[in-house]
């Protein structure tokens, strides 16, 4: 789960990772008050959305005095910010961070994440801050310092020093950096972060290190033990269909430009079903895994969420009954289709546990639908139906 930059910086401040003086605001007058309270100029006005590339999109502006600050605040708050990560529709800016500008000597990159290949924590740092790390990795991988941290020993002093040396920090800034890195690592562990990233981490003219940005992504599987992170959740940054699906514990992802809704059990099979729809010449509108332990009610909710997407021209249901029995699925589909007055073509492909009973329930329901035998057959039938 992603959180906003200003929320990340609140955590940074709590953990002793230095951030510029400032604060968040949701309306113009409070934002102006924050700008005044900083007590120095310039200040930076930053749009708070869950996407990168904000500066280039016009969502980050420097103000030299209160009038400029007010003008920028008015411009940015309420704007639709388009960046390369938001897609062409952009995001409406509803929250701002206003903070002190600083005298930048150097821009650095620092990130910590779990490394799936080794099962170790990986600290990545680079003297080429401000650029995207993926870009640095592609063009000049030698500029990235990588330090792997064993989960059983945690971050050791010499490893922290390796990072500092790798960044070529001046002696005057090293001690503060080491403290900052250890604090950041503690935060990363405490919050089960699947990524903490500071880009840029700056070295100021007076040899202070300061986090100008804060990106924290928390492992969704760990949210049960982080109620304070759940408080940070901003549902307006998420797709409304996905928010609805989250309530019913459904793994749902909206895909742009699709016309075929699909409902599948199992993540791998759901991906394979999307691929099959595409291969048959239609476009999948979503990823939806109802999971192994789904009951009729959950299936009905999943079905309702699919139908609430007005772009959908047809629905494909593909179930390989293992734990999820075909009769359970069939009952849920019948229940939901009747409640929602299904108006688009429906193709159902079922196989596995209790398949005969499932087919009987569907056949006797009087629902209009096409049945299919294999995944390919199902994909071709739905593609033909939405043409």
């Amino acid at each position: 789960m992603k959180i906003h930059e200003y929320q990340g910086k609140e955590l940074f401040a709590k953990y002793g990772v230095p951030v510029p003086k400032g604060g968040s605001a949701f309306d113009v007058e409070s934002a102006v008050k924050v700008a005044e309270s900083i007590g120095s100029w310039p200040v930076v006005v930053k749009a708070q959305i869950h996407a990168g590339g904000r500066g280039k999109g016009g969502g980050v502006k420097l103000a030299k005095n209160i009038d400029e600050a007010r003008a920028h605040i008015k411009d940015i708050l309420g704007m639709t910010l388009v960046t390369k990560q938001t897609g062409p529709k952009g995001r409406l800016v509803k929250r701002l961070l206003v903070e002190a500008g600083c005298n930048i000597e150097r821009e650095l990159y620092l990130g910590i994440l779990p490394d799936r290949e080794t099962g170790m924590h990986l600290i990545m740092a680079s003297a080429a801050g401000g650029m995207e790390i993926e870009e640095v990795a592609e063009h000049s991988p030698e500029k990235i310092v990588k330090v792997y941290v064993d989960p059983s020993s945690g971050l050791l002093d010499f490893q922290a020093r390796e990072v500092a040396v790798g960044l070529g920090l001046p002696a005057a800034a090293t001690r503060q950096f080491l403290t900052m890195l250890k604090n950041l690592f503690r935060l990363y562990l405490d919050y089960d972060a699947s990524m903490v990233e500071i880009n840029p981490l700056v070295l100021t003219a007076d040899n202070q290190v300061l986090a100008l940005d804060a990106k924290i992504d928390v492992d969704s599987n760990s949210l049960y033990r982080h109620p304070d992170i759940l408080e940070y959740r901003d549902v307006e940054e998420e797709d409304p269909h996905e928010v609805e699906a989250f309530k019913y514990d459904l793994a749902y992802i909206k895909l742009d430009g699709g016309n075929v809704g699909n409902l599948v059990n199992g993540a791998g099979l759901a991906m394979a079903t999307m691929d099959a729809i595409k291969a048959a010449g239609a476009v999948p509108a979503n990823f939806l895994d109802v999971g192994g332990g789904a009951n009729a009610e959950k299936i009905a909710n999943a079905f309702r969420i699919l139908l609430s997407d007005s772009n959908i021209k047809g629905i494909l249901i593909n179930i390989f009954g293992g734990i999820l029995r075909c009769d359970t699925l069939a009952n849920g589909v019948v229940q939901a289709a009747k409640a929602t007055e299904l108006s688009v073509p429906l193709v159902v492909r079922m196989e596995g546990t209790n398949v005969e009973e499932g087919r009987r329930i569907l056949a006797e329901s009087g629902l209009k639908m096409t049945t299919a035998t294999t995944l390919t057959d199902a994909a071709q039938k739905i593609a033909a139906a939405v043409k």
Partner: protein
Amino acid sequence: MSIFTKEPVRLIVQGITGKDGFFHTQKCAEYGTNVAGGVTPGKGGEKAGDWPIYNSVREARTATKANATMIFVPPAFAADAIMEAAEAGIELIVCITEGIPIMDMMRAKRFLADKKSRLIGPNCPGIITPGEYKIGIQPGFIHTPGGPIGVVSRSGTLTYESVYALTQAGYGQTTCVGIGGDPVNGTNFIDCLEAFNADAKTTGIVMVGEIGGNNEEKAAAYIKANIKKPVIGFIAGITAPPGRRMGHAGAIVSGNSGTGQGKLTAFRENGIVVCENLGELGAIAKRTFG
């Protein structure tokens, strides 16, 4: 005999008193697996059906001589359950639980590094040697005993889909392993490929991967260098958008790494027969395995 087990399986179930745990314990026993008992802390001395319950894995192992465990413990306690089983000397640990925090799994994986236990999963359907035993949640009836094909997969239902296609095309299976959809897991593709290569009864391999990480690429290079048997490969998620986690915690394309196309290319370059459409697996199997 299955890959990964030398002795006949004697299974215990951690979390046997849970609804899913008990249901699948019964299903495994019905399939022919030798289930010796279960573990639920605080319920030692009671029974789950006819099976004795123990308070700890160590106690269960001492009493039953169990050499394998199946874990249905909820995500918050599952990594601990894995480590408890390893500490007690259980040889084969199959963890079904989905949704374990990644940092818990990193700790567990490190803990297992100097133990002799093999972990399969987590977030997996389990392992089955058709006709002999199953440890997991697979629908047993879609499998065909006697081989000669080995199946290894990151997904659950996609494994069933592949196995069923093989069964319908007339191919039985030696062992089918679901290694799980999590980014940090116990057994990987290469472990299974190595075991299938060494298993005399296995003459061909089906490998089912998905987007995210680079384990398929590493496996492809390993196959070219070491595997003498024909391998068919499938990748799920070719059409998935980058940066989104597709259900499985491990299924995410980041930047240029983990893409489906990259994996298919790695398959082709290393002599793996690519199955682009799972509906054609049966036909491709006939061409490839004869």
